[in-house]
């Protein structure tokens, strides 16, 4: 029996060899992957046992970690959660994180390389390691004014306000919104229920409309077309433009009419300024045909179209169609056909005009601050390029000021401040009501302090949809909040 016994002991050695090999595979080869797997509860308890840093607006924390007597030590808590959700995002046990919570996680969690020395000191002194804080560029009053304005329309929409000289985002609002506290709970069942409810809600409260939703920009795109016209050198604000009630679109049987099927100017001749002031489709359709799609696209791209931005959350790119034929070019020139823009993009268009033609990179994070309150990083404004010449910018500012002072955008006027703006009523087709837009900046005669874009989806369900009626008052409120008037 000894031969089979010897074979048996060899077999046993082989079995143990397999176990040892497999243990080596797990604990050496796969060790890092297993440790860092996002389902590894150890990572979560490690993360939740540290005090995560706050997110600040001005000097006020809008997101903090509150100590609990729970298994996981700190609970993420949002004040005015719905108001700031498009900026803060959420921080969830089940669904990870989004927004600034996600993009600046390493500082908030205290694991950033810049906090390395701090961590060593904490370890040595036995101090409880803490996360750093993130200070946003948001202006609390502007943010509140924008959110309140959107709430009042009762519909869906978004507002983005930018400081034209720096690119700092002053307001970033999306409505309807959601309360990130619903996803921050330590009860996974509760979080899952809330998340499922939010994501199946047909009004899509978790969609960040300001950065991630594109809309046809409608007449607000005429700022881009006007810029292209002025930059071409063949147009000035006083150039005479086509003054018919409707434009025959080449190659088709259809026509492009003005809003009220009337000529742009009753005096028989209209200038580019008149056309912008009254938002004449015929004039801009013709300009589009004159300039061609390439010139329009080039101008749009100088304002940031066809490009995504990281603010630090990634926006979706706004689009100008690739190969439109002539009728499509005329449609595109008035912001229809396949032109699509995010609220962020239209705010950038206004901001570039306001900043003497220079487009600044938009950003939401002002400072990263260590737990000891030393500043780790402060965002320096960065130029993205020159969208239009200073002369063109000045002409555009003047023409857009006329829009607010005695054109289609009178509801954006502020006493004692010159305001430039442009309305938009973007057709969607399919029988759905149009989107109402308003894009503006102020002051328009000296250094501008704020540029705003407002969009209200489907006209907010109102019987009469117009940018001036629905969107301009919100833009006005936001501008007043920033200008403190």
């Amino acid at each position: 029996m000894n031969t089979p016994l010897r074979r048996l002991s060899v077999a046993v050695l082989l079995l143990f060899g397999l176990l040892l090999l497999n243990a080596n595979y797990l604990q050496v080869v796969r060790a890092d992957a297993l440790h860092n797997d996002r389902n590894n509860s150890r990572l979560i308890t490690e993360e939740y046992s540290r005090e995560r840093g706050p997110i600040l607006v001005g000097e006020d924390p809008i997101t903090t970690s509150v100590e609990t007597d729970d298994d996981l030590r700190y609970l993420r808590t949002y004040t005015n959660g719905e108001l700031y959700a498009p900026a803060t995002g959420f921080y969830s046990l089940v669904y990870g994180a989004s927004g600034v919570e996600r993009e600046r996680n390493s500082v908030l969690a205290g694991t950033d390389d810049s906090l390395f020395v701090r961590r060593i000191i904490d370890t040595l002194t036995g101090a409880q390691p803490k996360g750093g804080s993130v200070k946003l560029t948001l202006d609390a009053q502007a943010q509140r004014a924008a959110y309140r304005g959107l709430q009042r329309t009762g519909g869906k929409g978004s507002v983005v306000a930018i400081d034209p000289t720096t690119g700092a985002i002053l307001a970033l609002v999306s409505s309807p919104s959601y309360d990130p506290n619903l996803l921050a709970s330590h009860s996974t069942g509760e979080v899952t229920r809330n998340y499922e409810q939010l994501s199946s809600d047909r009004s899509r409260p978790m969609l960040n409309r300001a950065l991630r939703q594109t809309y046809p920009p409608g007449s607000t795109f005429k700022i881009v077309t006007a810029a292209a016209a002025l930059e071409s050198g063949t147009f000035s604000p006083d150039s005479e433009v086509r003054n018919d009630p409707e434009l025959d679109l080449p190659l088709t049987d259809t026509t492009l009419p003005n809003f009220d099927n009337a000529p742009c100017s009753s005096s028989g001749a209209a200038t580019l300024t008149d056309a912008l002031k009254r938002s004449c489709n015929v004039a801009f359709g013709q300009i589009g045909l004159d300039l061609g799609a390439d010139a329009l696209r080039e101008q749009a791209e100088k304002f940031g179209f066809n490009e995504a931005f990281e603010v630090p959350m990634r926006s979706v790119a706004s689009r100008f169609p690739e190969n439109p034929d002539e009728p499509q070019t005329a449609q595109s020139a008035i912001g229809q056909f396949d032109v699509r823009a995010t609220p962020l993009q239209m705010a950038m268009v206004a901001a570039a005009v306001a900043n003497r033609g220079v487009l600044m990179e938009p950003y939401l994070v002002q400072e990263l601050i260590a737990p000891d309150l030393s500043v780790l990083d402060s965002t320096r404004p960065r130029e993205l390029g020159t969208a239009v010449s200073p002369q063109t910018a000045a002409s555009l500012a003047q023409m857009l000021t006329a829009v607010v002072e005695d054109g289609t955008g009178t509801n954006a006027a502020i006493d004692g401040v010159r305001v430039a703006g442009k309305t938009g009523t973007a057709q969607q087709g399919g029988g759905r009501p149009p989107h109402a837009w308003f894009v503006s900046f102020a002051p328009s005669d000296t250094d501008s302090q704020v540029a705003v874009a407002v969009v209200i989806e489907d006209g907010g369900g109102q019987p009469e949809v117009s940018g001036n009626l629905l969107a301009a008052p919100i833009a006005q409120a936001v501008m007043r909040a920033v200008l403190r008037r």
Partner: protein
Amino acid sequence: MSRGGRGRSSRTVELILLVFSLATSMAAYAAVGLAHDGALPAGMLGYGGGLALLFGAAHVALRRLAPDADPVLLPAATLINGLGLAVIHRLDLAYADRAEALGREVPSAAAPAQLTWTAVGVILFVVVLVLVRDHRILQRFTYTAMLAGLVLLLLPLMPLIGTTINGARIWIRVAGFSFQPGEVAKILLLIFFAGYLVAKRDVLALAGRRIAGIDLPRARDLGPVVVTWVASLGVLVFERDLGTSLLFFGVFVALLYVATERLSWLLIGLALFLSGSFLAWTLFGHVRERVDIWLNAFAPRNVSDDSYQLVQGLFGMGTGGLLGAGLGQGRPDIVPYAQTDFIVAAIGEELGLTGLMAVLVVYAILVQRGLRSAIAVRDSFGKLLAAGLAFSVALQVFVVVGGVTRLIPLTGLTMPFLSYGGSSLVANWVLVALLLRISDAARRPAPSPSAVSLQDARTQVVRL
């Protein structure tokens, strides 16, 4: 009969190894205290003294009752038992901390119970050595052992005393004590297997038809293996105990091969195993579920649900890496049943690959010393019994560690000596006592030639 110097030197080696095992166990216990409270545990001296007394007694018993026995078996078992105590204690502390943090009632500590069971185990260890002065007397109880083993195996199925815990019906509860009779049944059935195969090996070795160069046994001799196969499937079906089922069948087939030296029995066993597995897989949801958890452990549908225990164990081992988090410094308490089925994951997490490999090597040594005794002992019954006892430990370790490290599907057995559990611990101490008894016979020096003249000596037939 002279007891020469060999026995004494064996026991000296054993004593030295035993001191090392106890020192390691104490170091582990101290490390837990240092990590948890920043100080050596208060009862350290009493605990160490108690362990030293207990295992010292086992050592003294061996000096008197089995002086020639293998010197490595007792220290190896002691080391694993001692380390297990430290890890169980460490998890007790974690569970208590968590319950306190949540304001719940602190669960009763497992380590003191395990310590009591260790004492009971060592006492039974000595009792076995006293009662079984020669392992061959066990052969007389071949069929009694079978009957008792089967009754024990079936006890959990009885109404009133049988209890289902975590889906497996392998517990009995009598007068407030719960007990897993399968562990004791294991030893009794091993005695039966050995006795039965000694009696029938010649018949079972007879060649039947020859197919593809392999001598197949005669069809009518297939009876016993088929009966064992059916019994194993019965355990699986009625008690839902995949591990025990696999263990019994595997050990029986291995012993059948050892007894008959016929490879064909291994092939038949393998074929029966495969068909049984397939049958179980097609017929039973819980088997399919186990396989799915194994193959798709990281699938989102399983990860936070069915395979949670497995993957959290794997994450722990990955987090532990090469050197481990250190005893008391990881989170093995995240893994459900870390004190029993998943104690290996706790060791992998806190002692790292290094610690896990060390533990596996100690098991391997224990098994190899057992198999060596089987080779060295002269009687067939002793050979088969020692082989069965040693191989059952090997197979059990393979099935548990393989399951926890996702080499094979999880089956739900406990680690011998390491896992928390009285019945398992006591049964394994009895198992080691029997192995030591056999190794004592194996290593006992032959009567010196001067005492018996060569002419008077009987001709010894040694089957090799």
